[in-house]
C-alpha cells in the first residue's frame, strides 16, 4: 500500500505543502485562540475538575460542543442530555466527512484515522481549498496535515493557557466575537456563484429563524436547508 509521502514528488515539495497548510491556518488562529482561551477559562471555573474540562479539547475537539458539554456538566444536566447535545452540535462533522471522503478514498487506513480525528471547521476549509485547487492529491493530504496539526496544537495550548491564566483576560474586548467575524469572511469570499450565494443566505436565514430550537438543532436544520437551496439553484441553472 502506498504511504502518503511515497507520492509527494520530492522532500522539498513535501515541506512546501506542509508549510503551505500551516500558513493557510494562521489567519484562523486569530479567532480560534481566543475561543480556546474562553473554553479554558470555562473549564477552570466549572463545577467539574479542570482536567475533565480540558479533556474536552483532545476528545470532543469542537469549540461549541466543548462549551456546551462543560457548561451542562457544570450545571448538573443529565449525562445523556450532555452527550446528545454535544453530538447534535457536532453532527455537521458527518457532512464534512462526506465532503472529504472522495479525496481520502484509497489512502492508507492510518491516514484516514488520523485525518478524520483532526477534521473540524478550519481544517476542513484549509484542506478542502487545497483539494479543490487540484494538482497532486498526495500534496493535498500533506497540506491538510500541515494546517490541521498547527490548529490542534494551538487549540490545546490555548485551552491550557485559558485554564491557567485566562481569567485575567479583559471580557470587555469581546474576543469571542472574532469567530463569527472570521466565519463571515470565509463565507463572503466564497460567494462567487448564484448557487453558493443561495446556499449561504438560506442557511443564515434558517439559522436565525431556528435559533430557539432546542439542543442546537437549528444549526443542523440551517445547514441542510442551505445544501438543499444550493442543489436546487444548481439544478435550475443546468
Amino acid at each position, binding site marked *: 500500500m502506498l504511504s502518503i509521502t511515497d507520492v509527494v514528488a520530492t522532500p522539498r515539495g513535501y515541506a512546501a505543502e506542509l508549510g503551505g497548510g500551516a500558513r493557510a491556518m494562521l489567519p484562523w488562529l486569530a479567532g480560534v485562540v481566543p475561543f480556546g482561551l474562553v473554553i479554558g477559562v470555562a473549564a477552570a471555573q466549572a463545577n467539574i475538575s479542570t482536567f*475533565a474540562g480540558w479533556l474536552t479539547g483532545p476528545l470532543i475537539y469542537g469549540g461549541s460542543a466543548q462549551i456546551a458539554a462543560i457548561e451542562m*456538566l457544570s450545571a448538573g444536566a443529565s449525562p445523556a442530555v450532555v452527550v446528545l447535545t454535544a453530538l447534535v452540535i457536532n453532527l455537521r462533522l458527518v457532512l*464534512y466527512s*462526506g*465532503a*472529504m471522503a472522495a479525496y481520502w478514498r484509497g489512502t492508507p487506513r492510518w491516514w*484516514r484515522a488520523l485525518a478524520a480525528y483532526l477534521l473540524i471547521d478550519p481544517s476542513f476549509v484549509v484542506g478542502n481549498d487545497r483539494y479543490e485547487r487540484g494538482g497532486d492529491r498526495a500534496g493535498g493530504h500533506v497540506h491538510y496535515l500541515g494546517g490541521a496539526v498547527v490548529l490542534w496544537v494551538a487549540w490545546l495550548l490555548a485551552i491550557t493557557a485559558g485554564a491557567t491564566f485566562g481569567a485575567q483576560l479583559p471580557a470587555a474586548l469581546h474576543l469571542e*466575537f472574532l469567530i463569527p467575524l472570521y466565519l463571515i469572511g470565509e463565507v463572503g469570499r466564497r460567494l462567487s456563484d448564484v448557487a453558493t450565494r443561495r446556499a449561504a443566505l438560506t442557511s443564515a436565514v434558517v439559522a436565525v429563524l431556528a435559533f430557539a430550537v432546542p439542543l442546537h438543532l437549528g444549526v443542523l436544520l440551517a445547514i441542510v436547508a442551505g*445544501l438543499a437551496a444550493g*442543489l436546487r439553484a444548481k439544478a435550475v441553472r443546468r
Partner: protein
Amino acid sequence: MTPFVVIVLAGLGSYLFRISMVLLAERMRLPERLERASSFVAPAAFAALAATSIAAASMGADVAAAVPPLGASAVAVAAVRLFRRAWAAPLVGMPVLWLLTAVVGS
C-alpha cells in the same frame, strides 16, 4: 456517570461522525447528490454558525445591546466584499464592535 465518562462518550461519538462517511466511501459509492452537495457544505455550515453566534450576541434584554454585534457584522460583510479577503472581516469588524460598544455602553 462521571464527567469523565460523559466526555469520553461525547468524544467517541464525535470521532464516529468524523470518520463515518470516510469509511462508508471505502465500501460503497457515496450518493451522487451528496458529492454534488459537498461544495456547499462549508458556506452553508459557516453561514449557519456565524448567524447563530451573531443572533446569540444580539438577543439581550436591552435592544441597544444588539447594535454593536449587528453593526460590526454588517461592516465586516462590506469589508469582505470590498477587499475580497477573509481576514478583512475581523480586522475591520472588531474595531467597529469596540467603538459601537463604547458608544452604546453595553
